[in-house]
């Protein structure tokens, strides 16, 4: 499919805007010299992914991303930054390693390989899917996926207990 055909679809223009925002935000996340900015820019990227989920008809996932990531995880990160007193300010030497080109090379090759193989495999296959509503997801979670769902709930519980055990002050000391 030619790029001119692709770009005439309004949804693809929206996609392009969101995608560029996300990529820019992601680059900021991994390059900024300010730790707090990094965490806050992650919100932008995750918000972008939520918007993509809406485009793909995944309403519940989109709102779950907003609630869990933006509402909880990023706040957790901010607390982590505060507690560990990560250097806040423009001090890039201490935030990154000195040599950046080997990681950049590896990351680039990862991208090339992944993009290459997906392009080989899917070419210009269209997405046909419609919206899957939240009530359908809810039904599925509690019928077909009830066992993985319960297992994941135990994982969360274990993580909760583990987090408390790890992070609390040792009463002996």
């Amino acid at each position, binding site marked *: 499919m030619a790029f001119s055909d692709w770009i005439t679809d309004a949804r693809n223009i929206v996609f392009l805007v969101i995608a560029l925002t996300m990529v820019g935000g992601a680059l900021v996340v991994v390059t900024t010299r300010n730790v707090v900015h990094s965490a806050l820019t992650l919100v932008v990227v995750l918000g972008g992914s939520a918007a*993509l989920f809406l485009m*793909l008809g995944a309403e519940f996932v989109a709102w779950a991303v907003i609630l869990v990531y933006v509402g909880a995880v990023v706040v957790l990160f901010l607390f982590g930054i505060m507690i*560990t007193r990560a250097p806040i300010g423009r001090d890039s030497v201490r935030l990154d390693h000195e040599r950046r080109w080997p990681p*950049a090379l590896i990351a680039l090759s990862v991208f090339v390989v992944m993009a290459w193989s997906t392009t080989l495999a899917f070419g210009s296959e269209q997405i046909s899917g419609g919206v899957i509503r939240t009530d359908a997801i809810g039904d599925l979670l509690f019928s077909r996926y009830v066992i993985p769902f319960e297992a994941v709930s135990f994982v969360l519980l274990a993580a909760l207990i583990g987090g408390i055990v*790890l*992070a609390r002050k040792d009463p002996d000391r």
Partner: protein
Amino acid sequence: MIVNQFLVLGALLFSIGVYGVLVRRNAVLVLLSIELMLAAVNINLVAFGAYVDDAVAAGQVFALFVITVAAAEVGIGLAIVVLIFRNRSSANVDELDLMKW
């Protein structure tokens, strides 16, 4: 919309996350980069789900599971970082070389 546009975006985000994981010294920032990679995986999952368009919504359900596990991972990860910081007064990954011979 073609499915590959989402996949390439996912690959790009994932690679940026890989770069962040490899280049950042601060453990919190490494965890942030891992979140980036997980987000990329979620995009792939949901895109594939929409592409296959199955009745059981496997892509979306597994994206939800990934979100849950990611939340658990962040909780535990940050707890470990806090613990390490408390013991060694530093949260820099490259100062933790206990796995060395």
